[in-house]
Structures are given as structure tokens and as C-alpha cells.
């Protein structure tokens, strides 16, 4: 039941995890200043996507996948994984997608939006190295 502002602040705090503030040397950025910078950048990114420049909007062509349901986008990723030889990952992803359709709680109304977010973030961090 938190507001969007509170949730965005929490997201900013999450991204500060792992930054050490203890051994801060003279002249380094303070936590508060950096938190403010993060919020500014977060709102900047959010607003630029929500209200893209009107002239750009006229020129920009809609992507083919814009209206594709997020579940189909995940299935397209599964196909790409198979093509890339990652059969196991593709099968696991398909299984999880099926499971999601079964277990999706009625409390969560925007599961498709969350899936869409995950598709947008797919591959945004390097694949974890397998240890030997």
C-alpha cells in the first residue's frame, strides 16, 4: 500500500546496497547527496519514458513486439535460447511460465506487466559463471 514515491525511494536504496560508506575519504560523495542524485536520475528516466518528446514520438516507428503479450515475448526468448543451444534453460523457462499461469495469485493483478518488465531487463546483467 506504499505510494509510488516511497517505492521509488526504496528502489534507490536497494541500488545503494553494496556501496561502502564507512571508509569514505575526504571529498567523497556523501550518502545523502548520492541518494538525492539517484532519485533525480530515477525520476528523469521515468519521466523521459512516460512523456517522450512529442516530435520524436511522431517519427519513431512502433516496434513489432510492442503489442505482443509479455508471455509470448518470454516464449520468443525460449526460442532464441534453443537456437543458441541452451535447451535446458529454455525448458526451465517454459516450465516456470506455465507454473506462473497456474499459481498466479488473484491478489496480483499486473503479472503481465511484471513479466514485461522482466523481458525488458533480460540479459541486463552478465550470466553467472558456473564454478568447477
Amino acid at each position: 500500500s506504499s505510494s509510488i514515491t516511497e517505492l521509488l525511494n526504496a528502489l534507490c536504496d536497494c541500488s545503494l546496497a553494496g556501496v561502502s560508506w564507512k571508509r569514505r575519504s575526504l571529498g567523497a560523495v556523501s550518502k545523502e547527496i548520492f541518494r538525492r542524485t539517484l532519485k533525480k536520475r530515477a525520476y528523469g528516466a521515468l519521466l523521459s519514458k512516460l512523456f517522450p518528446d512529442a516530435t520524436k514520438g511522431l517519427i519513431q516507428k512502433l516496434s513489432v513486439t510492442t503489442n505482443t503479450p509479455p508471455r509470448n515475448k518470454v516464449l520468443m526468448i525460449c526460442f532464441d535460447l534453443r537456437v543458441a543451444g541452451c535447451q535446458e534453460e529454455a525448458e526451465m523457462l517454459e516450465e516456470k511460465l506455465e507454473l506462473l499461469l497456474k499459481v498466479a495469485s488473484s491478489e496480483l493483478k499486473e503479472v503481465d506487466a511484471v513479466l514485461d518488465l522482466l523481458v525488458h531487463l533480460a540479459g541486463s546483467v552478465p550470466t553467472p559463471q558456473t564454478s568447477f
Partner: protein
Amino acid sequence: MASATSANLNAVRETMDVLLEISRLLNTGLDMESLSICVRLCEQGINPEALSAVIKELRKASESLKVQQQQHTKCHFK
């Protein structure tokens, strides 16, 4: 009444677990805490593409801070 609430909670938890597994398979870099914040933001009607841009921007900013701090620490100990 209490059992219905508990069943709802379990269903939400189960959905979150599956979403986290999908998130891991897709290498999104989200942990359970940030994923649950994102789920709540989506529930509030935030556009997923805009939210992904926010997350990428926050990552860029915190990465540059880490680099900046490492350089600062190196200079300080020289």
C-alpha cells in the same frame, strides 16, 4: 476469514517465488527485495518499460559511484 487471508498470502508468495525464478533465468539482476518493489510499482500502474529504464539508470549511477569511490580510496592511501 483468517485461513482465507493466509491462503492469499501463500498464493502471493508462491507467485513471487516463480517470478523470481523467471527473473533469474532471464538474468535481470533483480533480487527478491527489488523484485517485490517492482511488482508493487507495476501494481500501482507504472509502465514496465519506464521502470526498466529507471532500474538500468540506477545501476549505471551506483556503478559509477563505486568506481569513483574506489579511485578516491586509492588516491587517499597513496
